[in-house]
């Protein structure tokens, strides 16, 4: 299916029904992202960029419109299939890292493989390999609380990558980091994209967006700007 784009959104609406009022978070988004792209999605808070990220990440489905993920229509899938897609196709990186505090780094990284039904031996081997890649091989047995912020985010990136997903979906990945460690984390994303990994970063930070090669701006639930940056 690599002939089709990785992501194709067509006329995607997301309406939240709060009981009294209906809020349109997304009002007809059209967006196509190819394999291997490095995209920053920007927008002020309340613009709908978080909602867009949830839909891209298969955590939520559009109220209206079509979302083809690698050729598969996501809008009509069951929650089980969505979980499977999240597991196989998408690697999430969160602002607050969201490592499970009571499980070791290794266990955290293994978790998506566990949910994917990968056997213990292979799980362990792949988790160690990926931890080695992000430079945390010697921290595998530590608890997340024993790591620095930068190390935690690298562990979270390792966890996101361990299932070899089609896209990395990062939500303000440097938001809880100081400038230096934030830059280090961005270097990791740059390097990953350099070897062909699709990376989508949701951010309001222009410095972060500057790493991407394409910036999509969301305002009031619509794409207001979509431009490629000079490499």
């Amino acid at each position, binding site marked *: 299916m690599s002939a089709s784009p990785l992501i194709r959104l067509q006329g995607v609406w997301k309406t939240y029904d709060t009981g009294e009022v209906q809020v349109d978070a997304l009002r007809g988004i059209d967006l196509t992202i190819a394999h291997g792209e490095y995209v920053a999605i920007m927008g002020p808070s309340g613009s709908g960029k978080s909602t867009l990220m*949830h839909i891209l*990440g298969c*955590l*939520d489905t559009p109220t209206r419109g079509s979302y083809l993920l690698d050729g598969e229509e996501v809008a009509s899938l069951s*929650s*089980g299939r969505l*979980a*499977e897609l*999240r*597991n*196989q196709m998408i690697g*999430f990186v*969160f602002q607050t890292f*969201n490592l*499970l505090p*009571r*499980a070791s780094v290794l*266990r955290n990284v293994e*978790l*998506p493989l*566990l*949910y*994917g*039904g990968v056997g*213990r031996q292979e799980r362990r081997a792949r988790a160690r390999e990926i931890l080695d890649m992000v430079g945390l091989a010697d921290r595998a047995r530590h608890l997340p609380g024993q790591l620095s912020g930068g190390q935690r985010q690298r562990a979270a990136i390792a*966890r996101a990558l361990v*299932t070899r997903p089609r896209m990395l979906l990062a939500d303000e990945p440097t938001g809880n980091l100081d400038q230096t460690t934030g830059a280090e984390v961005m270097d990791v994303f740059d390097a990953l994209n350099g070897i062909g990994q699709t990376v989508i970063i949701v951010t309001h930070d222009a410095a972060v967006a500057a790493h991407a090669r394409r910036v999509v701006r969301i305002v009031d639930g619509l794409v207001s700007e979509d431009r490629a940056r000079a490499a």
Partner: protein
Amino acid sequence: MKLLEVIADGIVDVRAHGGRTALQTIGVVLGVASVIATMGLTAGGRQQSLNYMAETGGVLKVMVYPRPPETVRGTARERSSRGLTLDDAEAIRASIPGFELVEPAMRTRSLLRSPRASKSYPVTAVAPGYAELHELRVARGRFLCDEDLTTRAAVVVLGADRAHEFFGSGDAVGQVLRIGDTAFRVVGVLERREFYWNRSETWNALGWMNELVLAPVTAMQARQAGAGSRRVDELGLRLASARDHKEGVAALSRLLLARHGVEDFQVFDRQENLRQMNEQGKIYDLTFLVCGIISLVVGGIVVANIMMASFAERVREVGVRKALGARGWHIFVQFLLESLVVTGFGGLAGLLLGVAFVHASAHLLQQQAVLTPSMAVAALACSASVGVVFGFFPALQAARLDPVVALRTEG
């Protein structure tokens, strides 16, 4: 995805919550402990009754005694009753097949004399079957035999205490004991028997066996004053099998009533006692079980409560897990298992506590304690079902969380 691995994943989480888990289990621990303790103690009491019965001729023994005349309403007919007689025994032997032993015994108080002592005691006139009926055991010599009966031999078998009283610590067998005016040869001495209902008890429930003076019924009738009386003081019977019990005992009462015209006898039926005891035991068991179940339910509510709290603070974690690809059932199994492990652990701790309590109280009350594997299984099954029942709802709730909402939750 392998269920076992999801299970392992859940257990890791429980371990990380040691203190809270311990608190969570207290209700279950105490519930299980109280169930075990009460079951153990009531079973202990019942076992002791069974032990006594086993020591004294088993549960198939039926005893018939004449009802003391003053308790019978005094119509002329009732007063004219001859009470239990040897003829009653013969009639039972002849017409009720369900009894394998029919042993009448007659008691007369006589002056007993040996070179060492002289004192008046009841002498029991019996047949050889008396030993089997009451499970008397001969320590030295022999018991009365059929030949003694047919030859009206002047022989006597003594309980351990009587032997000691009249013949000291030496061997009484072969010595002569005078009963009234007649010289009886001691042919056997019974084993000394003891049974105490609990360990602080000083009354020996088998003491009567040690005080027996047993002579052949024929010899006593031939030689003693009042000979020819066919009145017996007790009629001991044994059923061939528990199956014949109802029918046999009913036939016995019918026969005696028909022969006597009035109910001047009392039947003590161990099968019936046993049934009543079991019935009563069931009431105790039920009461204690209800108490135990109530405390388990309370324990379960605590578990559910803490599961809810734990669930509330782990909403975000559930969101993360779902983002990583966990399906509803992964989360469900994880939460349910956590509750199961907690209550299972509580059940195990409660089991140990209950066993310790039973032993301690058994020691304190000088009571016998009985613990069976089935009690342990029941206790663990109870606590596990508490875990499933009270973990179910929180687990379901967690499984159904919307990942977007869950991820937005602080914590």
